[in-house]
């Protein structure tokens, strides 16, 4: 984990304006959040397929990671918006809006989970919900694109070029790998912790 963090900070060599560097943090975090949600949906699908309980915990942990990285996306995106355009929030920034919708959706996931009694039913409901989440991602994206014509005119233009030159690309890839590694280790960490908790609860029940 330390290595991934080291990688994380090392490539922050100034290439163009200082502000632009947050791109290297914000986008990998956003992509990692998506990756977490897709991983959660995959685990959810496996749960529904095989009815093996252990996928429930994996799916839940992945959603948790996704939400954490989602919050980070929103925060770093806000900071970027503030430095680039002078506003903390803008509805014309597609990624932020999409993340806000997804953040709402997955926050409701936790509401769902904590208001249902633990058991196979809760596992299945969470799995179905996680699946709906990933279907919602492209549908929301499409919706937000359609909505842009309706709500606010796109006033701000992106000042980050679409083409990534060699050294920038390398930096980006390293940051992405680092963030994914970070997410992965956090995920495994939390999963192990939760599994231990569950095991402990089982043992307690067996002993009492």
């Amino acid at each position, binding site marked *: 984990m330390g290595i991934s963090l080291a990688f994380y900070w090392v490539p922050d060599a100034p290439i163009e304006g200082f502000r632009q560097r947050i791109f290297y943090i914000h986008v990998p975090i956003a992509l990692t959040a998506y990756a977490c949600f897709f991983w959660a949906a995959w685990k959810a699908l496996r749960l529904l397929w095989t009815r093996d309980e252990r996928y429930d915990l994996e799916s839940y942990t992945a959603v948790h990671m996704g939400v954490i990285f989602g919050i980070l996306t929103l925060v770093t995106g806000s900071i970027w918006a503030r430095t680039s355009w002078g506003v903390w929030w803008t509805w014309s920034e597609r990624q932020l809006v999409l993340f806000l919708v997804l953040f*709402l959706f997955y926050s409701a996931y936790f*509401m*769902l989970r904590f*208001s*249902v009694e633990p058991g196979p039913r809760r596992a*299945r*409901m969470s799995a179905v*919900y996680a699946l709906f989440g990933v279907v919602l991602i492209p549908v929301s994206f499409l919706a937000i694109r*359609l909505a842009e014509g*309706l709500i606010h005119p796109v006033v701000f233009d992106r000042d980050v070029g679409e083409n990534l030159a060699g050294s920038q690309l390398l930096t980006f890839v390293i940051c992405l790998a680092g963030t994914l590694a970070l997410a992965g280790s956090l995920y495994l960490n939390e999963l192990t912790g939760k599994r231990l908790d569950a095991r402990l609860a089982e043992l307690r029940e067996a002993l009492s």
Partner: protein
Amino acid sequence: MRYLADVGTLAAKDLRLELRSRDTVPAMLLFVVATLVVFNFALPAGASAEAAYGLLWAALVFTAILGLTRAFAAEREQRVLEGLVLAPSDRSAIWLGKAIAVVAFLALAEVVALPAFALFFEPVSWELVAAVALATIGFAAVGTLLAAMAAASRARELLLPLLFLPLVIPIVVGGVGASIADDPGRYLGFLALYDLIFAILSWASFEYVVTE
């Protein structure tokens, strides 16, 4: 064929119950008209027509939530859902029957809401009616599944809006777009796409939500 017969029976049961008890639909009708009146005060003077259409869609979403909160209430109170699940028919028939009933209730509410809107605010075009029809299918499809989830939880009335609102944001986008944009066809197409995707998904996953 048995499947469709089951669906028909279930939908007819809900409609008949509603006809006899008359508790959900009148509440929805009154709610949507009251909301429109509130919006008159919520809109500042000289607000654009677009704002009014936007608020119409907000009213429709909240009316849908109202109706859906009641969707599985009878089943839960009488503990009928376990019985339905044990019945030797495909569980997704429960979803389809219930969704059809919800569409019927929402349609009744809209039959009142749209003329009221036309009276109070802005004219209602055929594209808007089409959008409302497509949106109703979307609300019912997604809402029935989520209502079943919420019915199993402790926090029922609180949970349904939380689950429902993020999922129907695309419907609102499609609906408002069809109301005010220059080419509503795109938005109507999007609504149809949403309905297709989420109806299939809800139909397929209802079984997992409702069985123990």
